[in-house]
Structures are given as structure tokens and as C-alpha cells.
């Protein structure tokens, strides 16, 4: 019996992008169900009653929610290209950085965006980004995962593509090339990966989104 895989999401979401990248890495065929977040489908509410959010992966009728939980599930359930490191300690480290991106880094960046590049907010965001810059420096490779992308690269997708669009929309700078040469290089490398590129929406659409949502009246 063939696997039935559905992904509920909307195309401009960085969290959905994490999941499509993971699915593409494993070569998994899936059906994308586009959700209108202002009018959520009965299915979405049934599959994610706790948070009522996207992405939700439904595998043979069983739903899984929360983007990083879904990515780990994909790695657990399907063989093929590994998303997490094989070594136990390195796996723990990868989970740590992915969690850091969600818990500290992205919220700080978001605060800088919603505060229109206010100095203190930008400084705090840059303080968090510095940890990632150091991590790339120490690794000395193309990606957080080494020569190939792993969980951490996937978790950082917002930084790779959405942050630049937000900066352009609002005329602010958080990820400056002189302060963050490694991350800047990583962004270009990451979004050039076929498994990522295939599902990215045009940059203008994201710029327009940020302009509309957070731009000055």
C-alpha cells in the first residue's frame, strides 16, 4: 500500500518551508493542501486542535504538528538522506541549535523587525546571531550540517530567506555582511540547495508581506 502524505500549510511560511525541505531531502511525494489562515479548514482544526496552526503533516491519516517535531518525524520514519547527525552527541548538539533558533534567535529578530530596526532590539538580535556566526566559524564548512544541510540549517530557514526580505521591506539592517560574513555566505548557499529552492515563493511576495504587515502607514 502506498504511503499517503499530505502537508497542510501556506506557501509563504518559513515553518512550512522547513517541512517541504525535509520531505524533498527524503524524496517523499506529498500532496500540499493550501490553507487560508483567516478561514481555517475543518481538516486543519481536526488535525491540530491544540494550536490550530500550520504546518501539519498527515501520514496515512495520522497528523503530526509543530515544524521541528515534524522534521524529526520525517527523519525517523523514512530512510535515505539523514537529517540529524548519526553520532549521539552531535545529534544532541543539532537539536540544541535548532531549539536555540526557535527559542531565542527568531524571537529577537522578530522584535527587531516589529520595532522597525530600533537600536536596542537590533543589538539584541545581533547578540543571538553571533552564537550562530561563531558556530559556523568553528565548523569551518558550508553548512551547519557540514558539507550537507542538516536539522540546524533547516531550522534557520527564516534567517536564510525571510530576514533579508523583511530588511528590504522596512529599510533596516540586522544581518550585516561585515558583522556576519559566515551567516551571509551560508544564506546564499542554503537557498541555492535544490531541496530548498524548489518551494520558495518569490522574494517580492515576502517583501510585500512584511511591508504590508509591519511597514509604516
Amino acid at each position: 500500500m502506498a504511503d499517503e502524505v499530505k502537508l497542510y500549510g501556506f506557501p509563504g511560511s518559513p515553518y512550512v518551508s522547513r517541512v517541504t525541505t525535509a520531505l524533498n531531502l527524503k524524496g517523499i511525494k506529498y500532496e500540499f493542501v493550501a490553507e487560508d489562515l483567516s478561514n481555517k479548514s475543518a481538516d486543519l482544526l481536526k488535525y491540530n486542535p491544540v494550536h490550530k496552526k500550520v504546518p501539519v503533516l498527515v501520514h496515512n491519516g495520522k497528523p503530526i504538528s509543530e515544524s521541528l517535531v515534524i522534521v524529526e518525524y520525517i527523519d525517523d520514519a523514512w530512510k535515505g538522506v539523514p537529517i540529524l547527525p548519526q553520532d549521539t552527541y552531535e545529534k544532541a548538539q543539532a537539536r540544541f541549535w535548532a531549539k536555540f533558533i526557535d527559542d531565542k534567535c527568531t524571537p529577537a529578530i522578530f522584535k527587531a523587525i516589529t520595532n522597525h530596526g530600533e537600536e536596542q532590539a537590533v543589538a539584541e538580535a545581533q547578540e543571538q546571531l553571533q552564537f550562530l556566526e561563531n558556530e559556523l566559524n568553528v565548523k569551518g564548512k558550508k553548512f551547519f550540517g557540514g558539507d550537507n544541510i542538516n536539522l540546524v540549517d533547516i531550522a534557520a530557514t527564516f534567517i536564510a530567506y525571510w530576514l533579508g526580505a523583511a530588511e528590504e521591506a522596512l529599510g533596516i539592517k540586522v544581518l550585516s555582511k561585515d558583522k556576519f560574513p559566515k551567516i551571509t555566505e551560508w544564506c546564499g548557499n542554503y537557498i541555492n540547495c535544490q531541496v530548498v529552492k524548489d518551494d520558495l515563493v518569490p522574494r517580492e511576495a515576502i517583501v510585500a508581506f512584511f511591508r504590508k504587515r509591519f511597514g509604516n502607514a
Partner: protein
Amino acid sequence: MGKRSEIKLLGTDASPYVNRVQFVLNLKSIEYEYIEENLACKSELLLKSNPVYKKVPVLLHANKPPLPESLIIIEYLDEIYPDIHPILPSNPLDRADNRFWASYIDNKFFPLFEELRQTPGKEGKEVIKKQIIEGSELLEEAFVKFSNGKAYFGGDDVGYLDVVLGCFIGWTKFFEKHIELKVIDELRTPKLLEWTNRIWSHEAFKNTIPGNETLLDFYMMLQIHKPPRAA
């Protein structure tokens, strides 16, 4: 002549996140050296071991670099000692379900209590209390689903969510006593109430769950060092 412990744990007695790791070490019968931290005056070792968060718990395993974050430590311990009392299930979907609820507990449920402490005014507090009650009812449903008629989230014996949520039952007792907040009660969350009684008396949990005095000291420390917001 003492055996040098391969595992050291930096922690503080009152922290439910530290307690979780201790439960897992107990369940797996792993000997470890415990180093108590004073969170009002953090040691050089802690600041060096966890420069990103500066928090406990931190696991120091043999000569590996330090590992912080309780849920990450638990999965790590489960993977290096897989044969003794496995914590997470092996089926990918069950693992995802467990991780989802751990994420709910840590990102949505537990933060409500600190929010409650920091929120000024009776009205503001009532709003948060209502969210806590709703959360506890969601967890009751989750317990019914996971336990499937058995004693624990993990089934016949304790598993991941028993550890992830069980660390908090000292605090729920504390809140009931000191701020009249009944998180778990016989009417709204009867199954969870029965479950907490089992956790209180479980070998791996009972000597680790902090008592009222420890929690009161910690709570007072928080009130001083991170005072509630002004009205």
C-alpha cells in the same frame, strides 16, 4: 577511594527542568555527581558550560562538551543508555506525539506560571489562571489518550511525558497551598490527580521532587531577583 563519576549534573533542587533529568538518571540507575548551583549567583562553571542560556540543567558527560536543555539531555541519555528503562517509545509516530506534548508543556503550559507570578493585579491574574485551568484540562485529555487505561502516560510504567510533566507536581502542590490555585483537582482532572499520587510514591521520583520549603525559598528568590511587573 571514590569512583570518578562519568556523569555530572549542574542543577538546582527547585528546578523542575533539573528534576526531569534526575528522574531519568534514577530510572536508568545511572550514578552521577550532582553540583548544586545558586541561581542568584551563578558559578563560573555554569556560565562557561552554558554561555547561550546560562541556565540549569547542564549535563557533563565524560570529556564531551557540556550539554544544556532538559529535553535534549533526556533524549541524549535515552540514546546512550538505550537498554535500561527506555524513556521514549521506538515507533516514530509515538515519538512525534510525545515530543509534541513536551513542546506544548514547555512552550505553552509551564510559562503560564511565571506569567502568573509576574502579572500585577487581580484581574490580570484571573485571566492567566483561566488559561492554566484550560491547559490542565488539555493535559487530562492527553493523559487519557496516552495512558489508554493504564497507570502512566508511558503505559504500565513511566515514560517520557511522565518525566516531562511529573517534575512539576511539587509546584502544583505549592500553588495550591500558597496562592489558592488548584491546577489538578478531582472534578476537572480526575485521572491526572490519580496519576500525581502514583508519581509522588514512585521510587525514581519520590526522593527527588522538592518539598514545600525548598520551593518557597526559590519562589522568594524569584520575587526578589525578578520582581513582578508594576501595575
